[in-house]
């Protein structure tokens, strides 16, 4: 059993059967009064962030979670199938569970899969992925400095804003935390 002194960023606890991860926390103690820990916690199943205040010393249930490195294999119906790179065990996550991250999965991409009580509930893709441009308006030669951008569709269906010099067939580095263009990859 854990208690509020274990609370730190990333600490995972179980509330009404749902795993939550601590995003932010603050010790507060009204003068001469009871101490509390105010927290901002993220529902690991839905991604919703809520505020919750615990009495200092309150007992907490640790959530039974683990993260495993897995390789993306293929889509299957409404799901995507991954394989544990150590045990070769295969697991499927629904597109709904994957959300935006579906756009960062290419054959063989390695992701961190979060498991709750042994079942996969979400993935963290690599911070940067390289994706091919499948569609964008033709580029303007020589325009490499302008701040003007245009939309581009990438091979996974992801849409990002790119500089004008980017062309269909270019390979781009994308930041998965912000879903944004970083740079064009040479070669």
């Amino acid at each position, binding site marked *: 059993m854990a208690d509020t002194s274990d609370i730190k960023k990333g600490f995972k606890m179980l509330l009404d059967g749902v795993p939550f991860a601590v995003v932010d926390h603050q*010790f507060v103690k*009204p003068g001469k*009064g009871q*101490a*509390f820990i105010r927290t901002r916690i993220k529902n690991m199943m839905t991604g919703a962030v809520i505020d919750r*205040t615990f009495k200092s010393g309150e007992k907490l249930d640790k959530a039974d979670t683990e993260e495993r490195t897995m390789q993306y294999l293929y889509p299957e119906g409404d799901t995507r199938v991954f394989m544990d790179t150590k045990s070769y065990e295969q697991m499927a996550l629904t597109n709904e569970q994957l959300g935006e991250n579906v756009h960062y999965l290419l054959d063989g991409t390695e992701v961190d899969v979060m498991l709750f009580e042994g079942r996969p509930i979400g993935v963290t893709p690599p911070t940067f992925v390289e994706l091919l441009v499948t569609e964008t308006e033709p580029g303007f030669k020589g325009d490499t400095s302008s701040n003007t951008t245009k939309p581009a569709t990438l091979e996974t269906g992801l849409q990002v804003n790119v500089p004008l010099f980017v062309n269909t067939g270019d390979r781009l580095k994308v930041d998965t935390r912000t879903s944004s263009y970083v740079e064009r990859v040479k070669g």
Partner: protein
Amino acid sequence: MVQVLELRAALLSAIRHFFADRDFIEVETPAIVPSPGLDVHLSAFEVRDPRGERVGWLATSPEYQMKRLLSAGAQRIFQVCRSYRGEERGRHHEREFTMLEWYRADATSDALIGDTEELVAFVADSLDQPAPEVQPPWQRMTVDEALQFHAHLTLASLLDDEERFFRVWAEEVQPRLGNERPIVVTDWPASMASLAKLKPNGMADRFEAFFRGVELCNGFGELTDATEQRRRFERDQAERQAGGLPVYPIDERFLADLGRGMPESGGNALGVDRLLMLLLGAASIQAVMPFPEEQL
């Protein structure tokens, strides 16, 4: 880091200057004391000698000894010292922190509120941190008004559930106190009087100032009735016992001196690290301390 050291030194120097100008004398009282304070929500570090025998506790504030000095005839005293709280750690808490405490004999809590306003304005000027918002007079509100204004609840509706009171205070009220300018909150319930006397309206003669949602100080019109003080100590001890908390002894010499004729007095305790943090706009008290516990 060097800049923080310079600003801290300037702050301490300004505090001493401020009190010297008002005929206060600086005093020193021990860090190891026979009773660390009985407030139910305070926890203290026990101190043992090399043979493992208990010597006392680290003071959670220098309050008892400074009041004994008032009983001994001191009129205006201040102290800047380290104080220790066993379990307080966070952005606005360190287990070892710097406390400024001052007392005026023959004075009311109003005089202490006035000192506080002037001190903070003076210190801000001395640090060259232009802070027009801290110029006196500060806004005042009672606890009941603060609850009604920020949480739409009356104090009366929370009085029989102290935990709920503190939860509402911590979540709804305190974060919104003093966002523009510092505010002084008065008229605390009698059950939270601690070492304050009661006012004719039955409320505790206790005030706290808040600035940007941070508690800056806690002051009292001091209780001088030794019998009533013993009754409160015994109640706190019983509550500690019931809650499975360590039961600290009653400081009998403090009570004896209180009974021997402590003058009507006002006192205030102010967090020096928090004051520096607020004046500099720092994100935590750790940012204005050379060695917060985590970096030792």
